[in-house]
């Protein structure tokens, strides 16, 4: 028997979404940098900010999963 919390599955699903998002951001930023290497530093900053916003969603899910399993309060 597997014992666990359904919140873990939710966190996993959110990680899929965030993974796709961050993958897109990283890929497009690479493309941009390859096309225009002189703008690399600006692209990198913008990329990190965008990645932070995407990542936040996954982290919200992690926190919800924690609360769901009742381990952090």
């Amino acid at each position, binding site marked *: 028997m597997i014992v666990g919390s359904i919140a873990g599955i939710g966190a996993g699903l959110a990680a899929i979404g965030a993974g796709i998002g961050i993958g897109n951001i990283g890929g497009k930023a690479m493309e941009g940098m390859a096309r225009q290497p002189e703008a690399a*530093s600006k692209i990198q*900053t913008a990329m*990190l*900010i965008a990645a*932070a*916003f995407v*990542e*936040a969603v996954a*982290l*919200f899910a*992690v*926190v919800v999963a924690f609360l769901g399993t*009742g*381990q*952090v309060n």
Partner: protein
Amino acid sequence: MDLSHIFNSKKFFSKSFCAVLFSLLSFSAFSQEHTSADTAHAETSVSHAGTEKKEDISQIILHHIADSHEWHFFGDVSVPLPVILYTENGLVSFLSNKFGHNDHGTDVIEADGSKLVNYHGKFYYPAPVKGADGTYITHDSRGDILNAKPLDISITKNVVSLLISVSVLLIVFISIANTYKKREGKAPKGLQSILEPIIIFVRDDIAKPQLGYRYKGFMPYLLTVFFFVWLNNLMGLIPFFPGGANLTGNIAVTMMLALCTFVLTTVNGNKNYWGHVFTPHVPWWLYPLMIPVEIIGLFTKPIALMIRLFANITAGHILILSLISLIFIIKSVLVAGVAIPFVLFISVIELVVGFIQAFIFTILSALFIGMAVEEHAEH
């Protein structure tokens, strides 16, 4: 009186560090007396190891990332920290090892006339009678604790870590500020040369692009936040004494940091900023929908800042501890061959994450402040 020569000398750092270390280590003698009680508990936990092993490990991991009333060094050596509680009978304070290390809620302790019970490192008022599980803690059907709690304003491990990191920041930055005053217009020297590129990075890559010509007023805040978060992220990664306190993985600390950004944004917001909130550029019949959304937006930004830092750092710590725990879950030394290099790999990634999170916290703070202070024509 000019004290900068003291701060500048290398001997000062090494001497003061040793002094602090040894004075703290001398406390450890106090903790030895509870060794027998601890081993007795260890034996009981071994006897029913099989079924509860996995739960034990998740408990250990959560214990490691949580705050505590003592600073654990290794084995049985730990430094007790002062517990300060605001109870019904006023302030109560005692060293955390005064009543032993029993945190299972089975003993009632009496400090300055207040009856208390220590349950998993937190102090509660005891239930009038012992429950069926032998503790003075009552749970409801969901497992939540029903006991009332005194207000805990103790000097905990996180508070000590905060004080250490703040004193390091003060010593370093006051000393380089003095060097800047003294050596105006000359090339940087010593500590200054390490930190100048980072300070310039914060100014040119974080403050200027987001804040434009108004960057100067917000530089002190941005630099403070950046170096505070970065230093504490790095100190959290050190597994032994000066570090190891998971300070930026504590939601109360990140909440205060986010609150500072929120207050700065709210106080500095100009009429365009508030205009966006209360008269958004949408048809008037959308106002009942848009104004609440904009008002919620004011609060979600700092809340996202808070959760992002907390969850990133906590997740990193849990990941490292889980990988090490794999050895004990699978119960084979061979796993260490896989787990330890992986832990090293993750730790190196965490070094980068520590910097990136500090950078992101600062740049988002700058972005939010920039949104609050920008003029309409700059769109």
